[in-house]
């Protein structure tokens, strides 16, 4: 977000809260359900103030029972409501993995199309805040490989503000991953805020020499790396995936067809990562467009540690992205 853009200044967290407030006002079937949404406004503070405005029926605090309240969200969606379930972190969502994978994702297909599950689940993902290995992993790609789910990763103020409404209008279960490092990101939002789609990648910076593919909390790192590369005369394109399922493969291939080089930045562990999937797709469908081997910049294969220097060392860094991009253009 450029500070010079017209519109109001606000944070990513405030943009998410505005979207929630608007969704709750627009449709009385919409309600928020999750842990701590009452006292803190959720652990992320996104739903703060909403309880006072809307009351405990619509802002529904639950016991610490992820499986029950995520499943209750699925049941309420089957029953005609439009729940927004808030799970504190993706790490905690593993307690509800069965409900999300075996139920929300599968009910429609296994019932022969009889049911839809119009559910939205929001959760924090990612590291960078010294919360260590049970609050800091990037596991969104686990969900992104499940047929029946849709997975979004808003990385800009426009997407934080705009993705919720179309996600709620979608008759399918939609998971929205908010990277913890983005909540304080500040910028300008046009007034009225722009409508956004929940599909399709977006080119956040155009360039000709190398494509940096990123999403969520890795987008600011990719943009910073592109700035650093520009100073060295390397013109990087930054592609924000925005949606992890369905994946906009065409956008990746179109960019690679022009730049002939690709670096995927992904905070998940490298093994079995979405970065691996993207590189595989490029290899299958655009191998002869490539002028250099694809690069992946991922997290070290360790449980994310607490100590700052160790956490930093475990995560993708701007320097790491720059170094990978240099290798693809033969400047290592």
């Amino acid at each position, binding site marked *: 977000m450029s500070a010079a853009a017209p519109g109001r200044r606000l944070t990513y967290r405030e943009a998410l809260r505005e979207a929630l407030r608007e969704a709750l006002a627009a449709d009385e079937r919409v309600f928020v359900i999750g842990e701590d949404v009452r006292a803190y406004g959720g652990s992320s503070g996104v739903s703060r103030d909403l309880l006072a405005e809307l009351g405990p029926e619509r802002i529904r605090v639950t016991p610490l029972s992820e499986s029950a309240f995520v*499943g209750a969200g699925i*049941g309420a969606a*089957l*029953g005609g409501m439009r*729940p927004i379930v808030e799970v504190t972190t993706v790490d905690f969502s593993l307690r509800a993995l069965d409900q999300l994978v075996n139920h929300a994702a599968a009910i429609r297909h296994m*019932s*022969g*199309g009889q049911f839809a599950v119009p559910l939205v689940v929001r959760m924090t993902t990612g590291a960078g805040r010294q919360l260590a290995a049970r609050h800091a992993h990037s596991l969104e790609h686990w969900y992104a490989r499940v047929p029946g789910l849709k997975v979004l990763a808003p990385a800009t103020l426009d997407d934080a503000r705009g993705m919720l409404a179309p996600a709620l209008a979608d008759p399918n279960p939609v998971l929205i991953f908010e990277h913890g490092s983005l909540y304080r990101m500040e910028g300008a939002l046009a007034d009225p805020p722009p409508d956004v789609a929940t599909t399709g990648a977006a080119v956040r910076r155009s360039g000709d020499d190398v494509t940096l593919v990123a999403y969520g909390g890795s987008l600011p790192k990719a943009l910073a790396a592109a700035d650093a590369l520009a100073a060295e005369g390397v013109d990087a394109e930054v592609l924000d995936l925005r949606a992890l399922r369905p994946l906009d493969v065409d956008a990746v291939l179109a960019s690679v067809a022009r730049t002939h080089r690709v670096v995927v930045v992904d905070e998940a562990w490298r093994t079995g990562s979405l970065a691996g999937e993207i590189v595989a797709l490029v290899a299958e469908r655009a191998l002869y467009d490539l002028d250099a081997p694809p690069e992946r910049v991922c997290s070290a294969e360790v449980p994310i540690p607490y100590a700052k220097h160790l956490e930093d060392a475990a995560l993708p860094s701007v320097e790491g992205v720059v170094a990978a991009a240099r290798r693809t253009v033969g400047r290592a």
Partner: protein
Amino acid sequence: MTPAPDRDHALHLLREMTRIRRFEEACAELCSATKIRGFLHLHIGEEAVATGAMQSLGDDDAVVATYREHGHALVRGLPPRELMAEMLGRVEGCCHGHGGSMHVFDASRRFYGGNAIVGGGLPLAVGLALADQMSDRTDRVTACFFGAGAIAEGELHESIDLAALWRLPVLFVCESNRCATSTALERSASETDLPVKAASHELPAWHADGMDVLAVEQAVRRAAGMVRGGEGPVLVELRTYRFRASTYDPCLHRSEEVARWRERDPLVTFPAWLRSQGWLDDDALNGIEERVAAEVADAIAFAEAGTPEPVTELERFVYAWEDG
């Protein structure tokens, strides 16, 4: 045996139980003939549970069942043809053959599965009831069936706690056949009395004889009335027994036990009681059996004549689209 309300209703209960028994006996044969594949979990021996419990539910109520749900689906009104076609994997099946025996769904009858994750349906039932409560549909009940195995699942406690906390209209029905897959309840639970466990959640709970269809009906009707009256969730444990093996074959270890429970077979004891009331004779019983046999034969013929869903449709129904 609790007094029956009237002869016609009592004979209706016998017809329903007989239909489940004969339908499932046919399923077992079709399974041996490898026409039904995958896992087949039979309700045989437990027919009084589905039959009795479903009597107090109306069309607007919702049902969440387990993977042992053929009986529940039949009593709920799913046509035997659609159920059998599902089990044979035909497109004419209620779920186009996508679900099979363990995953029977019927939206038109508010039958939300058929759930092959033990305890997995419990949170869904809480959510369905929450939707009713938030929409002021105060006359509705969501009946959630679960088995003895679910007693050990954390989801049971999470779900009944949430339902009790919010006073949701959930009727929890434990179909307790005293066996968690292949492990006797005594070997898998520190406290085997579910109402005792439920008491800590401030949930009214009682048990009833799950082999006695009239006792089941009465116990569940009382519970459903409380739930419908806005008193919050109620739990009923129905103690029953399955005569056939589940996934594995615990029968090898329980032949004496099976023999003991067979004396309480609802398809033996209930007809005997009806006879003692003067409401049933050989002709009437034969009439029921003949009609059920014809219905089962028709379902099998329909299913066997059914068609496989075209493979071109494989990926249909993964996602719903706004235009339907």
